[in-house]
């Protein structure tokens, strides 16, 4: 009799555990269902806050993590000696720019930053001339190597120099080719991996805005 009671209890515990399990997984589904899953962009359900860094924009002004607050910021990382990937990405963004929403419903504007990971060759002046060629609104950013490392490491952006000899200005730079999107709280909100399509970048921004407003 005691054994029967033990078995009944065991079954009861098993059934309750199963029930809780199903309920939890449904709850999780409901929570994650808000993330638009048919997007090319990877939208983070938990946006990642940034740790402090100091860069400079192409007008020689300090640019810190607080500079991202109150606006949406696209980032692309590269260098002006890049013949193919960087101009291609900036042209795609320029095309997307013409058809994407310019603010979210709260009025946060959208900005585009081209971050040079090659400050030895890319002066702020060169970066400004280069970046604004694609769109006068685009902004160049760069900084000291250690600050660029702090900035890129936390964003999962990789870069490295190929055969960079001292006093030589002839070397290649390997680099990540994602666009990143920082939300108005200054947190990493989305990652857009190549190959980049202007139409998708433009149309998905509205979806990302909607998701952010639900957070």
């Amino acid at each position, binding site marked *: 009799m005691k054994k029967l009671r033990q078995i009944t209890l065991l079954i009861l515990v098993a059934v309750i555990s199963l029930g809780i399990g199903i309920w939890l997984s449904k709850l999780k589904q409901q929570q994650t269902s808000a993330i638009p899953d048919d997007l090319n962009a990877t939208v983070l359900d938990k946006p990642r806050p940034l740790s402090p860094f100091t860069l400079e924009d192409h007008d020689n002004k300090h640019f810190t993590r607080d500079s991202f607050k109150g606006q949406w910021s696209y980032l692309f990382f590269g260098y002006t000696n890049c*013949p*193919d990937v960087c101009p*291609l990405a900036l042209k795609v963004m320029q095309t997307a720019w013409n058809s994407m929403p310019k603010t979210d419903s709260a009025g946060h504007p959208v900005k585009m930053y081209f971050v040079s990971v090659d400050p030895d060759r890319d002066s702020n002046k060169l970066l400004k001339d*280069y970046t604004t060629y694609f769109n006068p609104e685009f902004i160049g950013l760069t900084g000291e190597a250690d600050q660029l490392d702090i900035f890129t490491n936390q964003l999962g952006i990789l870069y490295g120099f*190929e055969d960079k000899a001292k006093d030589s200005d002839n070397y290649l730079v*390997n680099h990540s080719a994602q666009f990143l999107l920082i939300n108005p709280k200054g947190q990493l909100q989305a990652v857009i991996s190549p190959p980049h399509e202007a139409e998708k970048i433009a149309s998905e921004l509205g979806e990302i805005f909607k998701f952010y407003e639900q957070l």
Partner: protein
Amino acid sequence: MRTLTTTLLILLISFSVNSAELNTSNVRIPEAPPVAPVMAGYMTLINDSNKDITITSINSSLYKSVEIHSMSMKDGMMHMEQLDHFTIPAKGQRLLEPGGYHLMLIKPQKTLRAGDTIDVIFHYQDKTTQTFNFKVEK
């Protein structure tokens, strides 16, 4: 008689030398910011001949140097590499295209705008050369 033989031989050699020629389509250089230290060149290279054609070097009077680069995703980064030769197989074709193999045109000697045309000379392994006319496009 000897002169005639020599002449024929020279003609034959020059004919065979000239035979290593590529056909092309979509030959273009996208316009770049005037301050850009480099530009890219794209084209489709078509080899209708029965022999492989190997490009060993490239030059143009409007650039300090011209290189052929491969492009690949390696360790999460876009990775470019200079190639010392580039072969278009017999009866085959290869693409120089955005995000793939491309020409890297280094240090333009003047500002090049959409509409400008640029002669680029390809040197082949058999010591022949061929000039292609690239158009700068917006």
